[in-house]
């Protein structure tokens, strides 16, 4: 039960003299701070943090939490985000002492269990993608894109092909694709897509030339179809000497069914927080490991986790019992002189990777394949119901998600995709992703995931139908049952108030 009283700002709840955490007394001889540090470096007073009691902090944040929808509480068909169930067993594993309490600069002999997990993750991700080399370091999907593009840039530089300045991106791609390309020093060229969502091959061929570095493709794409000409696209990019990058946002559709390395991708990232159920954390953290073809391996960020062969490991252990400490089985390998270097501090978003490891171990090869089969089944079932309510321009089939359009409703009754999205909140559903991809007018992108029931999908479709029958005026002002409704975003952008001023 939500309690509005306790959701005032922290700063309004503050009262001078309140304390929560109390620290132990200093147990070494204490000296005045100004005798230990130069006066010029010292603050005149500690920072103006709020002063609160512990029960107050608990109540404040607990009540704030009740103002969120979440996967644990609601159906969350947010397309492109794969909001599936977050297994609690993974949370437990990631929090174990011996996992959560490891420092990145510990001696390798003291973290063999962790390096085992990370080494296995590298191998699992390579197997699932059909690509032989892996870096677990990138911190998010967009960071994985950027890392892979740096790898591509280093590769082409090494090959003396610095004329390759172009990155081709379909107009339906995630905005991160062109943004990452620019950060890696490339210029982006947009390739059109058809109503079906497929790449417009004519436009693609017009824009493909010998200056191509990378074609970035999302497959299944953002309208949820498997690119029908992916083979031709890969062949033609390769014939021009370019590389094909797979945005792996939609891997939930093809686990064990099709592998990017087999359909022509030279590089890809994963979103373990989507595909492998690492929770989304209200916006993060995620992770963005990448896999690449053999010729790109030397350019991956350093280090990678490597394993000494069992023979040499046992041999050295026999000679010197100390050597398992000095030469443990798993180690961090910094040896590639062509590496692009570091893309972040330390090894990677390990906490997310541990959860993904648990997810893969919980499913095994058959389970992962069934995850994708059920995700595709649920999406097609929802599509079969929604298409009678809102047109789905791409057709009758999809992979893991589809994009419905409210264009007709807007023309006829002035009801927009946003109106529908907001009204869904009243009925206790998180809205689909709206106005993306930009290629579909009044887009509502639905991704039900495999961890929802037929009953939920039926009820959602029935609610959607009911909404389309409701008066336009009611919908324009929706939601009606939430604590707030239709925040003034224009005002927020024109008069930025970005912190609470005292």
């Amino acid at each position, binding site marked *: 039960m939500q309690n509005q009283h306790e959701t005032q700002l922290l700063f309004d709840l503050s009262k001078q003299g309140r304390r929560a955490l109390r620290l132990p007394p200093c147990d070494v001889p204490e000296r005045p701070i100004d005798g230990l540090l130069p006066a010029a470096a010292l*603050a005149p007073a500690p920072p103006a943090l709020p002063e609160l009691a512990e029960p107050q902090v608990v109540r404040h944040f607990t009540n704030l939490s009740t103002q969120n929808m979440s996967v644990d509480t609601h159906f969350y068909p947010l397309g492109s985000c794969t909001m599936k169930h977050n297994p609690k067993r993974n949370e437990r594993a990631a929090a174990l002492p011996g996992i959560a309490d490891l420092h990145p600069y510990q001696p390798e002999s003291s973290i063999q269990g962790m390096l085992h997990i990370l080494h296995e993750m590298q191998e699992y991700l390579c197997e699932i993608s059909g690509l032989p080399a892996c870096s677990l370091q990138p911190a998010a999907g967009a960071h994985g894109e950027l890392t892979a593009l740096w790898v591509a840039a280093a590769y082409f530089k090494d090959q003396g092909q610095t004329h390759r300045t172009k990155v081709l991106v379909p107009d339906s791609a995630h905005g991160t694709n062109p943004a990452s390309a620019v950060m890696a020093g490339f210029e982006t060229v947009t390739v059109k897509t058809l109503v079906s969502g497929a790449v417009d091959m004519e436009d693609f061929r017009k824009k493909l030339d010998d200056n191509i570095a990378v074609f970035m493709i999302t497959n299944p794409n953002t309208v949820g179809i498997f690119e029908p000409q992916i083979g031709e696209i890969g062949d033609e990019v390769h014939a021009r000497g370019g590389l094909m990058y797979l945005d792996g946002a939609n891997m939930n559709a093809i686990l064990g069914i099709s592998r990017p390395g087999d359909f022509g991708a030279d590089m890809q990232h994963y979103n373990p927080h989507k595909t492998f159920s690492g929770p989304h954390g209200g*916006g993060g953290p995620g992770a963005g490991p990448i896999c690449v073809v053999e010729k790109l391996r030397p350019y991956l960020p350093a280090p990678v986790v490597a394993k000494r062969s069992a023979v040499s490991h046992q041999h050295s252990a026999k000679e010197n019992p100390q050597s398992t400490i000095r030469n443990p089985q798993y180690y961090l390998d910094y040896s590639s002189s062509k590496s692009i270097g570091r893309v972040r501090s330390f090894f990677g978003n390990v906490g997310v990777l541990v959860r993904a490891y648990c997810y893969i171990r919980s499913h095994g090869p058959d389970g992962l394949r069934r995850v994708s089969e059920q995700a595709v089944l649920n999406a097609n079932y929802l599509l079969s119901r929604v298409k009678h309510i809102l047109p789905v321009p791409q057709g009758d089939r999809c992979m893991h998600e589809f994009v419905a359009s409210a264009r007709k409703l807007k023309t006829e009754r002035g009801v927009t995709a946003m109106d529908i999205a907001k009204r869904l909140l009243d009925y206790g559903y998180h809205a689909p992703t709206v106005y993306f991809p930009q290629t579909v007018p009044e887009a509502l992108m639905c991704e039900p995931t495999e961890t929802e029931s037929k009953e939920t999908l039926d009820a959602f479709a029935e609610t959607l139908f009911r909404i389309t029958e409701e008066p336009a005026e009611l919908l324009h002002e929706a939601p009606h049952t939430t604590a707030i409704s239709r925040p003034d975003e224009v005002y927020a952008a024109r008069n930025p108030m970005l912190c609470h001023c005292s």
Partner: protein
Amino acid sequence: MPFTYNTEEDVAAMLEAIGAASIEELLSQVPADFRLDRALDLPPAMGEMELDRHTRELAAMNVGAASGAVSFLGGGVYDHFIPSVVDTIASRGEFYTSYTPYQAEVAQGNLQAMFEYQTLITRLTGLDVSNCSLYDGASAAAEAVLMALAAGKGRTRVVVPASLHPEYRQTIETYVSCLPGEVVTVPAPDGVVSLDELRAAVDDQTACVLLQQPNFFGCIEDADEATRIAHDAGALMIAVFDPIGLGVLKRPGDWVAAGEGADIAVCEGQSLGSPMQYGGPFLGVLACRASLVRRVPGRIVGQTTDRRGKRCFVLTLQTREQHIRRDKATSNVCSNQGLFALRATVYLSLLGPEGIKETANLCLQKSRYLAERLAATDRFELAFEAPTFKEFVVRDREGRVDELVADGLAAGYLVGVPLGPLYPDLADCLLVAVTEKRTRAELDRMVAILTDDAAASPQRSPREPAEVG
């Protein structure tokens, strides 16, 4: 497949509604050439009980700060105390299983928490604006450099001291590697940046100067003078700070004088209530002056009112971002470390002004105690004279740093970070960090272990690695 609902009956009914004979028919969208014709080569599925046993066995092969070792490791990640309230709040499913607050009406919890986070960061740094966080400290530093290059209108030089975290410098190198920009490193021979050399390196082509305070070696830099050098040349000052240090140290925005300090401040926020997790995920903090707000990467939350006039919070200034601007965006970042920003918000709420000051003071007092005790032995000396905050560099006169680390581990102590791999000149040195969690008994035992004192016994052996499949 432990997390799905559909029964055979459901599947049959759904396929009938779709008009497909089988799931296989649905998958026929994938061209036959690209269908995987075998099972993935992965280990078989485990039930929850087997997984629990398996992960515990793997965890038991490690020795960490809460699993058998006393940690003196630092270098950007620290074993600070995490109050239980932080875990309790961050474990609420409404927080950790929600996503980006695109629908503000059903995300006010996250949005208000992020607004509170932004406010806390501005108060901590003395700057005007904070975003809702980036990946980690190193990428936040690199994004700050990109902001400065964009604001510098053609200035291409990025000046970094050798006393800035080496991994941050390497990350910055990578981020500017494909853009017009050059990174110039200024030496820090005495553990702090040489101000003369800094002055010589900064010119009218310099977009920004970075300074870490306290720096990678734990030493206090002359931040005021470094800031003057940057500003006199028309360059931006980027501060890399330790958030716990701000319990006693001047805020980056107040370097030189209030309002005249750093233009952008970044840090690794792990110290603010996040577990070490072998290096991530963490929290990249970025704050700046109001004049730079349109160049800030990543998400920002703003206050507004709803259609009924009620105060509320939304994602704002989105025209900077990739989903609107695509190739013209300030950055490709499309997420934030929401859960870790939340942890930091709860942590700082529990600490308050007195708590952060006391925490900082305990780190300072205890680290100085240990530093002085080690320096009083025959074997060790402090590598630098500059005053330090919570970590310091100690030189082993016998030059056997690897042995110290191995022997320490055998005694259940993670004694420090060997600096040789990062600074070849400091191959005989160890970076030692002391947080408020370390007790005097642990500090005294640390001295005994490092000096091989008989009092260091009884020796503990590291756990034997178990065979795990």
